[in-house]
Protein backbone atom coordinates (compact mmCIF):
# COMPACT_ATOMS: atom_id res chain seq x y z
CA UNK A 1 0.00 0.00 0.00
CA UNK A 2 2.74 2.45 1.00
CA UNK A 3 4.71 1.41 -2.07
CA UNK A 4 1.83 2.19 -4.42
CA UNK A 5 1.33 5.55 -2.68
CA UNK A 6 5.05 6.29 -3.00
CA UNK A 7 5.13 5.64 -6.74
CA UNK A 8 1.98 7.68 -7.42
CA UNK A 9 3.33 10.58 -5.33
CA UNK A 10 6.74 10.32 -7.01
CA UNK A 11 5.19 10.57 -10.49
CA UNK A 12 3.05 13.55 -9.44
CA UNK A 13 6.04 15.27 -7.81
CA UNK A 14 8.47 14.86 -10.69
CA UNK A 15 5.96 15.80 -13.37
CA UNK A 16 4.72 18.88 -11.50
CA UNK A 17 8.30 20.01 -10.76
CA UNK A 18 9.18 19.55 -14.44
CA UNK A 19 6.07 21.53 -15.39
CA UNK A 20 7.16 24.39 -13.10
CA UNK A 21 10.43 24.59 -15.06
CA UNK A 22 9.05 23.99 -18.55
CA UNK A 23 5.63 25.72 -18.67
CA UNK A 24 5.47 29.06 -20.50
CA UNK A 25 2.73 30.54 -18.32
CA UNK A 26 4.14 31.76 -14.97
CA UNK A 27 0.76 31.64 -13.23
CA UNK A 28 0.20 27.98 -14.17
CA UNK A 29 3.76 27.21 -13.06
CA UNK A 30 2.96 28.68 -9.62
CA UNK A 31 -0.26 26.61 -9.35
CA UNK A 32 1.69 23.45 -10.23
CA UNK A 33 4.30 24.39 -7.64
CA UNK A 34 1.48 24.29 -5.05
CA UNK A 35 0.59 20.79 -6.34
CA UNK A 36 4.25 19.90 -5.81
CA UNK A 37 4.10 21.18 -2.20
CA UNK A 38 1.02 19.03 -1.53
CA UNK A 39 2.86 16.04 -3.01
CA UNK A 40 5.76 16.59 -0.60
CA UNK A 41 3.24 16.71 2.27
CA UNK A 42 1.83 13.36 1.12
CA UNK A 43 5.36 11.97 0.96
CA UNK A 44 5.89 13.03 4.60
CA UNK A 45 2.81 10.99 5.52
CA UNK A 46 4.35 7.88 3.92
CA UNK A 47 7.41 8.58 6.11
CA UNK A 48 5.30 8.71 9.35
CA UNK A 49 5.99 12.46 9.71
CA UNK A 50 2.51 13.73 10.53
CA UNK A 51 3.54 17.05 12.13
CA UNK A 52 5.77 17.93 9.18
CA UNK A 53 2.99 17.07 6.71
CA UNK A 54 0.65 19.50 8.48
CA UNK A 55 3.37 22.17 8.66
CA UNK A 56 4.14 21.64 4.96
CA UNK A 57 0.50 22.23 3.97
CA UNK A 58 0.21 25.30 6.22
CA UNK A 59 3.56 26.98 5.48
CA UNK A 60 4.36 25.97 1.90
CA UNK A 61 1.03 25.29 0.18
CA UNK A 62 -0.70 27.99 2.20
CA UNK A 63 1.63 30.86 2.98
CA UNK A 64 4.42 30.63 0.40
CA UNK A 65 2.06 29.58 -2.42
CA UNK A 66 -0.22 32.57 -1.84
CA UNK A 67 2.82 34.86 -1.50
CA UNK A 68 4.14 33.68 -4.89
CA UNK A 69 0.74 34.18 -6.55
CA UNK A 70 0.58 37.71 -5.11
CA UNK A 71 4.09 38.46 -6.37
CA UNK A 72 3.16 37.27 -9.88
CA UNK A 73 0.06 39.46 -9.87
CA UNK A 74 1.94 42.49 -8.50
CA UNK A 75 4.76 42.27 -11.05
CA UNK A 76 2.29 41.95 -13.98
CA UNK A 77 5.00 40.48 -16.21
CA UNK A 78 2.87 37.60 -17.52
CA UNK A 79 3.16 38.64 -21.16
CA UNK A 80 6.92 38.04 -21.24
CA UNK A 81 6.27 34.47 -20.10
CA UNK A 82 8.81 32.11 -18.62
CA UNK A 83 11.77 32.00 -21.03
CA UNK A 84 15.12 30.28 -20.70
CA UNK A 85 18.26 32.41 -20.98
CA UNK A 86 21.19 31.69 -23.25
CA UNK A 87 23.15 29.58 -20.74
CA UNK A 88 20.43 26.97 -20.27
CA UNK A 89 22.41 24.15 -21.93
CA UNK A 90 25.38 24.38 -19.50
CA UNK A 91 22.83 24.55 -16.67
CA UNK A 92 21.18 21.36 -17.96
CA UNK A 93 24.55 19.58 -18.20
CA UNK A 94 25.47 20.70 -14.66
CA UNK A 95 22.14 19.51 -13.23
CA UNK A 96 22.41 16.12 -14.94
CA UNK A 97 26.00 15.71 -13.71
CA UNK A 98 24.89 16.50 -10.15
CA UNK A 99 21.98 14.04 -10.47
CA UNK A 100 24.29 11.28 -11.75
CA UNK A 101 26.77 11.94 -8.93
CA UNK A 102 24.13 11.84 -6.19
CA UNK A 103 22.50 8.67 -7.57
CA UNK A 104 25.90 7.00 -7.87
CA UNK A 105 26.75 7.85 -4.26
CA UNK A 106 23.32 6.77 -2.97
CA UNK A 107 23.50 3.41 -4.74
CA UNK A 108 27.18 2.87 -3.88
CA UNK A 109 26.77 3.45 -0.13
CA UNK A 110 25.90 0.68 2.31
CA UNK A 111 23.02 2.28 4.20
CA UNK A 112 22.34 -0.64 6.55
CA UNK A 113 25.04 0.42 8.99
CA UNK A 114 23.66 1.88 12.21
CA UNK A 115 24.96 5.39 12.74
CA UNK A 116 27.21 6.29 15.66
CA UNK A 117 25.68 9.78 15.92
CA UNK A 118 24.61 10.72 19.48
CA UNK A 119 20.85 10.42 19.43
CA UNK A 120 18.70 13.19 20.84
CA UNK A 121 15.48 11.23 21.13
CA UNK A 122 14.15 7.92 19.90
CA UNK A 123 10.54 7.03 19.33
CA UNK A 124 8.83 3.80 18.29
CA UNK A 125 7.28 3.66 14.83
CA UNK A 126 3.56 4.35 14.32
CA UNK A 127 3.16 7.01 16.98
CA UNK A 128 2.29 10.70 16.56
CA UNK A 129 5.55 12.64 16.23
CA UNK A 130 4.55 16.01 17.69
CA UNK A 131 5.50 15.46 21.33
CA UNK A 132 8.72 13.70 20.33
CA UNK A 133 9.68 16.64 18.09
CA UNK A 134 9.11 18.93 21.08
CA UNK A 135 11.44 16.77 23.19
CA UNK A 136 14.07 16.78 20.42
CA UNK A 137 13.81 20.57 20.04
CA UNK A 138 13.82 21.59 23.71
CA UNK A 139 15.90 18.85 25.32
CA UNK A 140 18.07 20.21 28.15
CA UNK A 141 21.34 18.60 27.12
CA UNK A 142 21.41 18.26 23.33
CA UNK A 143 18.33 20.11 22.16
CA UNK A 144 18.07 23.03 19.74
CA UNK A 145 17.00 25.87 22.04
CA UNK A 146 19.49 28.49 20.83
CA UNK A 147 18.81 27.82 17.08
CA UNK A 148 15.09 28.05 17.91
CA UNK A 149 15.56 31.52 19.42
CA UNK A 150 17.77 32.59 16.50
CA UNK A 151 15.06 31.40 14.08
CA UNK A 152 12.51 33.65 15.79
CA UNK A 153 14.88 36.63 15.47
CA UNK A 154 15.44 35.70 11.79
CA UNK A 155 11.68 35.70 11.16
CA UNK A 156 11.34 39.11 12.82
CA UNK A 157 14.20 40.48 10.71
CA UNK A 158 12.64 39.06 7.52
CA UNK A 159 9.27 40.61 8.45
CA UNK A 160 10.77 44.06 9.03
CA UNK A 161 13.02 43.74 5.97
CA UNK A 162 10.13 42.87 3.67
CA UNK A 163 8.06 45.80 4.96
CA UNK A 164 10.97 48.24 4.55
CA UNK A 165 11.77 46.98 1.03
CA UNK A 166 8.28 47.30 -0.45
CA UNK A 167 7.31 50.55 1.32
CA UNK A 168 6.99 53.40 -1.16
CA UNK A 169 9.18 56.41 -0.46
CA UNK A 170 7.54 59.72 0.43
CA UNK A 171 3.96 58.50 0.66
CA UNK A 172 3.83 58.06 4.41
Amino acid at each position, binding site marked *: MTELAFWVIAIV*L*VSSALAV*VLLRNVFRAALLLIVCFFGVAALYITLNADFLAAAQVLIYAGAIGILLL*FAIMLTRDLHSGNPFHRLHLPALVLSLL*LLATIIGV*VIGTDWTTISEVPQVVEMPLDEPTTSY*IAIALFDQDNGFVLPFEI*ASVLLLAALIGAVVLVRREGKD
Partner: protein
Amino acid sequence: MSLGLEHYLILSAILFSIGLYGALAKRNAVVVLMCIEIMLNAVNIAMVAFSRYLVPDVVVLTGHVFAIFIMTVAAAEAAVGLAIIITIYRNRHTVDIEQADLMQG
Protein backbone atom coordinates in the same frame (compact mmCIF):
# COMPACT_ATOMS: atom_id res chain seq x y z
CA MET B 1 11.49 -4.82 -4.11
CA SER B 2 10.34 -3.09 -0.98
CA LEU B 3 10.51 0.61 -0.33
CA GLY B 4 13.80 1.77 1.16
CA LEU B 5 15.93 4.77 1.92
CA GLU B 6 17.38 4.73 -1.61
CA HIS B 7 13.97 5.37 -3.21
CA TYR B 8 13.43 8.53 -1.19
CA LEU B 9 17.02 9.74 -1.69
CA ILE B 10 16.87 9.27 -5.46
CA LEU B 11 13.48 11.02 -5.66
CA SER B 12 14.98 13.84 -3.61
CA ALA B 13 17.99 14.00 -5.95
CA ILE B 14 15.74 14.17 -9.03
CA LEU B 15 13.69 17.00 -7.50
CA PHE B 16 16.85 18.85 -6.46
CA SER B 17 18.30 18.60 -9.98
CA ILE B 18 15.06 19.84 -11.57
CA GLY B 19 15.08 22.78 -9.16
CA LEU B 20 18.75 23.51 -9.82
CA TYR B 21 18.18 23.47 -13.59
CA GLY B 22 15.27 25.86 -13.26
CA ALA B 23 17.11 28.19 -10.88
CA LEU B 24 20.11 28.39 -13.22
CA ALA B 25 18.30 28.53 -16.57
CA LYS B 26 15.20 30.70 -16.13
CA ARG B 27 15.02 34.44 -16.73
CA ASN B 28 11.93 35.29 -14.69
CA ALA B 29 13.06 36.08 -11.12
CA VAL B 30 9.82 34.79 -9.57
CA VAL B 31 10.30 31.43 -11.32
CA VAL B 32 13.91 31.29 -10.05
CA LEU B 33 12.58 31.74 -6.51
CA MET B 34 9.99 28.98 -7.12
CA CYS B 35 12.75 26.61 -8.25
CA ILE B 36 14.75 27.39 -5.09
CA GLU B 37 11.67 26.37 -3.08
CA ILE B 38 11.63 23.04 -4.99
CA MET B 39 15.30 22.51 -4.04
CA LEU B 40 14.60 23.21 -0.35
CA ASN B 41 11.69 20.75 -0.43
CA ALA B 42 13.95 18.10 -1.96
CA VAL B 43 16.46 18.54 0.86
CA ASN B 44 13.63 18.26 3.41
CA ILE B 45 12.53 14.95 1.88
CA ALA B 46 16.08 13.62 2.24
CA MET B 47 16.26 14.81 5.90
CA VAL B 48 12.98 13.14 6.87
CA ALA B 49 13.88 9.94 4.98
CA PHE B 50 17.21 9.71 6.85
CA SER B 51 15.32 10.31 10.08
CA ARG B 52 12.92 7.48 9.27
CA TYR B 53 15.33 4.86 7.92
CA LEU B 54 18.74 5.40 9.51
CA VAL B 55 18.16 3.23 12.60
CA PRO B 56 15.82 0.24 12.20
CA ASP B 57 12.73 -0.05 14.44
CA VAL B 58 12.98 3.39 16.05
CA VAL B 59 12.91 6.92 14.72
CA VAL B 60 15.58 9.48 15.57
CA LEU B 61 13.88 12.82 15.16
CA THR B 62 16.85 15.13 14.53
CA GLY B 63 16.00 15.10 10.82
CA HIS B 64 12.50 16.40 11.59
CA VAL B 65 13.99 19.25 13.64
CA PHE B 66 16.31 20.16 10.76
CA ALA B 67 13.36 20.09 8.33
CA ILE B 68 11.45 22.49 10.59
CA PHE B 69 14.40 24.91 10.62
CA ILE B 70 14.68 24.67 6.82
CA MET B 71 10.97 25.52 6.53
CA THR B 72 11.47 28.57 8.77
CA VAL B 73 14.40 29.85 6.72
CA ALA B 74 12.48 29.15 3.49
CA ALA B 75 9.55 31.26 4.67
CA ALA B 76 11.87 34.15 5.59
CA GLU B 77 13.74 33.79 2.29
CA ALA B 78 10.52 33.80 0.23
CA ALA B 79 9.24 36.95 1.98
CA VAL B 80 12.48 38.93 1.56
CA GLY B 81 13.15 37.57 -1.96
CA LEU B 82 9.71 38.51 -3.24
CA ALA B 83 10.01 41.96 -1.63
CA ILE B 84 13.33 42.47 -3.48
CA ILE B 85 11.75 41.30 -6.77
CA ILE B 86 8.82 43.69 -6.33
CA THR B 87 11.25 46.54 -5.63
CA ILE B 88 13.25 45.70 -8.76
CA TYR B 89 10.03 45.59 -10.79
CA ARG B 90 8.97 48.97 -9.43
CA ASN B 91 12.28 50.59 -10.41
CA ARG B 92 13.01 48.84 -13.73
CA HIS B 93 9.54 47.57 -14.87
CA THR B 94 10.79 44.04 -15.49
CA VAL B 95 11.52 40.88 -13.49
CA ASP B 96 13.98 39.57 -16.12
CA ILE B 97 17.18 38.80 -14.21
CA GLU B 98 19.30 39.60 -17.28
CA GLN B 99 17.96 43.18 -17.15
CA ALA B 100 18.95 43.58 -13.49
CA ASP B 101 22.55 44.48 -14.31
CA LEU B 102 22.95 47.75 -12.42
CA MET B 103 26.14 46.58 -10.68
CA GLN B 104 27.72 45.14 -13.85
CA GLY B 105 30.94 46.99 -14.70
